[in-house]
């Protein structure tokens, strides 16, 4: 068990600092439930071992241990009761508590007689028993034995002096806190996971197995909300979040969805009239589970429809602004704004028309649905249900051609549904459905037996005259859209084909008149590009290490007729990667890596070329095309480098060493700095008495700012490690050490953040270690030179070449001497 303090960050409003306060091992078995009191002074833990412990949060020690529960502790709730002065209102006592929580605690622990507020803890267990603990007397105040199954929820109302408990035994009980007897039992007829008080303790909310939030009157025991039909398994309520100050209740469902329900205005006394179920004003998807498919919604592509491996299609907003005036509404980027409910089993496939206002979905319930999406009016409705297939639908497609810009269909797409829909099913047939005015019941125009195995994908070509079906039988078939006659078969994939996409009208297969291209992705890990002129495979793109699951052509706009660059296609695969390919050369242009599981879904923005990928890891990634920015950055960097180079050379040439050294230090250009120093040290005409060789450089070195000096030391450390560069480093180091008092050098700190990596000590240690090594080497050299001297002298006595050799040997000695210095 860990306790964290959460405080707003000093530097960034949008981040909270989390500080680990304590790390405790409270129980020998897992902690199943936690509760804190209102003032954050006490914490209660309930273990799987049936033990309840109370902790002082600041002190980190146990204040109480209660052992009476037999089974797992399943619910805990702190509350306060008035014991002596009944006339005190709970309002004033709350205020008092807030002012002096510490004092109250002290009183609570000593059980002071004059305190009129006492701490109680209610704990519920798996066996249905609820125990009330008096924290002052450190003993059980009552045992409430009415539930026969796990107690899931406890809440106390100070106004009505009642405790409410919800249990999986399908009942909710309101307990009278004076006598600790059941005041009323509510037969919910569903396992309860969450229950609590609203409206000053006169009303109880509950939720559980049926997935519906319900309200009950404490006075009459009647259900206030009208009867609601039970939801399916994923609708089950697993938790309910509510605080007294909030005007809403949040129900948490089994599919990790949070529903925000508006609370009605309660009359006092409570009106017993039956009301409508509490309206849901907001939905938050905790996770999108597996993102199977996606589609842009709306003409401006500002929404995204998600197929998340469930019966419903979720619609989220992509508006980047946080312009939500009502903060509880929360219409931020990625927030849920719509839900398409209708399918009775998992949705498998979907497609959107050119306008983004009509969405077709196919599901495991053997039906397809056409949805009318009107984001402006927040209206998302099912326009038609397509029944006729004998098995689950695996593929669906709508025509993507945009009508003429002057036509009514273009200006008002919401009243012009797509002309037809093509569906493919596990029953191995494809059907074409013509959309008529009488939308409600559409009938298939034709049905064609298409493949020997499942149909995985269907796509309609940009002109609307052809469609293609991809199947698990490894083939893709091309049909005429009007008659449904097969006109071509694409054979070549070694495994089932998962995805098929026609290229846009502008792309043409080479030497084919004006026939276009089609791309397929398969379980054999390849993407193939085919010509629609003769149905031959033009190119096989290899690079993925798992099945290619989805393809998307990027928008293609050739600059002019001579522009030979081909269209690009993006592929998403089971290896977690998205790849962008050149469909002419077959080269991978880019590999996009941000998923840890299969990437099922991939779409490209029709104008910007931005990509969105989604997969089994519940993550949806928005990819931005940064090609021009990257190019620009590379060009700028190159220009800068050239300019800098020139500038440095100019300075060095003009003898402006100060500027040159400062610039080289500032630009972090060790190579240039070194060649600069090298030219100084090896200058042909050294200034007499100068340490480095030139007086001006000596002066520059003795007048560096702390930050520059530190940087210089770092460079010297690096150069010193190399035999080739060490002599220069030694010389400069010598000049630096001579120019500054030791205290100044010792006071140097790495620039930037406190605690940045590396300290002065490390730098100096490194310099010293290598310097010592250099000295040792020089000493060895000197020793060797003596041997040489000796040998030469001996040889001199033999021959008369003394003059030349002697000269050389002395020269060698001199050089060594310089280095040793």
């Amino acid at each position, binding site marked *: 068990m860990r306790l964290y303090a959460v405080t707003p960050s000093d530097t960034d409003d949008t981040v909270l600092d989390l500080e680990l306060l304590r790390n405790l091992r409270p129980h020998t078995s897992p902690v199943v439930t936690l509760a804190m009191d209102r003032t*954050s002074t006490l914490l209660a833990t309930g273990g799987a071992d049936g033990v309840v412990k109370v902790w002082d949060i600041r002190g980190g020690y146990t204040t109480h241990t209660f052992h009476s529960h037999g089974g797992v502790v399943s619910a805990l709730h702190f509350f306060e009761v008035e014991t002596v002065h009944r006339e005190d209102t709970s309002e004033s006592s709350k205020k008092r508590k807030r002012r002096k929580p510490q004092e109250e605690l002290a009183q609570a622990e000593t059980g002071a007689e004059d305190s009129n507020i006492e701490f109680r803890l209610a704990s519920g267990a798996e066996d249905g028993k609820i125990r009330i603990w008096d924290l002052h007397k450190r003993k059980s105040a009552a045992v409430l034995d009415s539930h026969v199954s796990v107690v899931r929820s406890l809440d106390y109302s100070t106004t009505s002096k009642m405790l409410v408990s919800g249990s999986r035994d399908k009942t909710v009980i309101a307990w009278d806190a004076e006598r600790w007897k059941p005041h009323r039992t509510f037969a919910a007829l569903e396992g309860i996971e969450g229950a609590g008080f609203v409206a000053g303790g006169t009303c109880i909310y509950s939720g559980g197995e049926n997935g519906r939030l319900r309200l009950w009157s404490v006075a009459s025991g009647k259900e206030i909300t009208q009867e609601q039909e039970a939801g399916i398994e994923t609708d089950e309520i697993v938790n309910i979040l509510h605080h007294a100050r909030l005007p809403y209740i949040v129900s948490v469902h089994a599919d990790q969805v949070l529903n925000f329900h508006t609370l009605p205005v309660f009359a006092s006394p409570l009106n017993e009239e039956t009301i409508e179920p509490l309206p849901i004003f907001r939905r938050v998807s*905790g*996770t999108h589970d597996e993102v199977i498919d996606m589609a842009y919604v709306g003409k401006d592509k500002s929404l995204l429809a998600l197929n998340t491996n469930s019966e419903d299609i979720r619609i989220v907003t992509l508006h980047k602004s946080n312009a939500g005036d009502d903060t509880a509404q929360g219409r*931020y980027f990625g927030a849920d704004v719509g839900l398409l409910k209708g399918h009775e089993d998992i949705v498998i496939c979907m497609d959107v028309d050119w306008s983004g206002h009509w969405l077709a979905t196919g599901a495991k319930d053997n039906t397809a649905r056409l949805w009318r999406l009107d984001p402006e009016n927040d209206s998302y409705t099912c326009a038609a249900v397509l029944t006729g297939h004998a098995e689950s639908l695996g593929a669906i497609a709508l025509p993507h051609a945009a009508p003429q810009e002057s036509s009514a269909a273009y200006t008002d797409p919401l009243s012009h549904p797509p002309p037809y829909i093509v569906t493919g099913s596990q029953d191995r047939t494809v059907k074409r459905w013509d959309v008529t005015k009488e939308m409600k019941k559409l009938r298939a125009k034709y049905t064609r037996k298409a493949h020997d195995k499942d149909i995985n994908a269907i796509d309609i070509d940009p002109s609307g005259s052809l469609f293609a079906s991809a199947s698990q039988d490894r083939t893709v078939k091309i049909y005429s859209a009007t008659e449904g006659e097969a006109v071509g078969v694409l054979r070549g994939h070694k495994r089932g084909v998962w995805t098929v996409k026609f290229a846009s009208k502008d792309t043409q297969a080479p030497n084919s008149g004006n026939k276009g291209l089609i791309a397929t992705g398969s379980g054999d890990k390849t993407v193939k590009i085919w010509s629609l002129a003769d149905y031959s495979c033009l190119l096989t793109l290899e690079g993925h290490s798992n099945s290619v699951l989805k393809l998307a052509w990027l928008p293609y706009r050739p600059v002019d007729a001579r522009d030979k660059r081909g269209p690009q296609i993006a592929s998403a695969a089971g290896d977690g990667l998205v790849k962008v390919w050149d469909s002419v050369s077959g080269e991978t242009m*880019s590999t996009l890596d941000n998923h840890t599981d299969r990437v099922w879904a991939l779409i490209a923005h029709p104008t910007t070329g931005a990509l969105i990928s989604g997969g089994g890891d519940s993550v949806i*990634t928005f990819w931005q095309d940064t*090609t021009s920015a*990257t190019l620009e950055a590379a060009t700028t960097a190159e220009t800068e480098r050239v300019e800098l180079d020139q500038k440095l050379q100019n300075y060095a040439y003009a003898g402006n060493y100060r500027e040159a050294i400062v610039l080289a230090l500032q630009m972090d250009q060790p190579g240039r700095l070194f060649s600069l120093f090298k030219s100084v040290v090896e200058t042909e005409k050294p200034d007499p008495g100068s340490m480095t060789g030139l007086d001006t450089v000596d002066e520059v070195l003795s007048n560096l700012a702390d930050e520059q000096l530190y940087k210089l030391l770092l460079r010297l450390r690096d150069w010193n490690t190399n035999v080739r560069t060490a002599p220069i480093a030694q010389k400069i180091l010598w000049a630096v050490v001579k120019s500054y008092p030791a205290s100044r050098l010792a006071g140097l700190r790495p620039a930037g953040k406190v605690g940045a990596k590396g300290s002065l000590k490390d730098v100096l240690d490194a310099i010293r270690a290598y310097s010592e090594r250099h000295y040792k080497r020089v000493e060895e050299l000197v020793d060797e030179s003596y041997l040489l001297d000796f040998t030469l002298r001996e040889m001199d006595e033999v021959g008369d070449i003394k003059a030349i050799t002697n000269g050389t040997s002395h020269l060698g000695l001199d050089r060594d001497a310089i280095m040793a210095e």
Partner: protein
Amino acid sequence: MRTTYEVDRTIQPIYAGGSLSLSEDGRILAASVGEDVLLTDLTNGRELGRIEGDGETITSLACEQP
């Protein structure tokens, strides 16, 4: 020719089943995602903080505003 792509934004899970808790003003949701606990600002969807897990399942969490 497009050659480079970068991650612009992501939509990630903020609650993946298990325990969760809401701050008293309804702004912050603390919820378990796998072995981590994620703090989310429900007014703008931003991640406020993440408590890295220790490899053990989160069985319970509670938050309180003093």
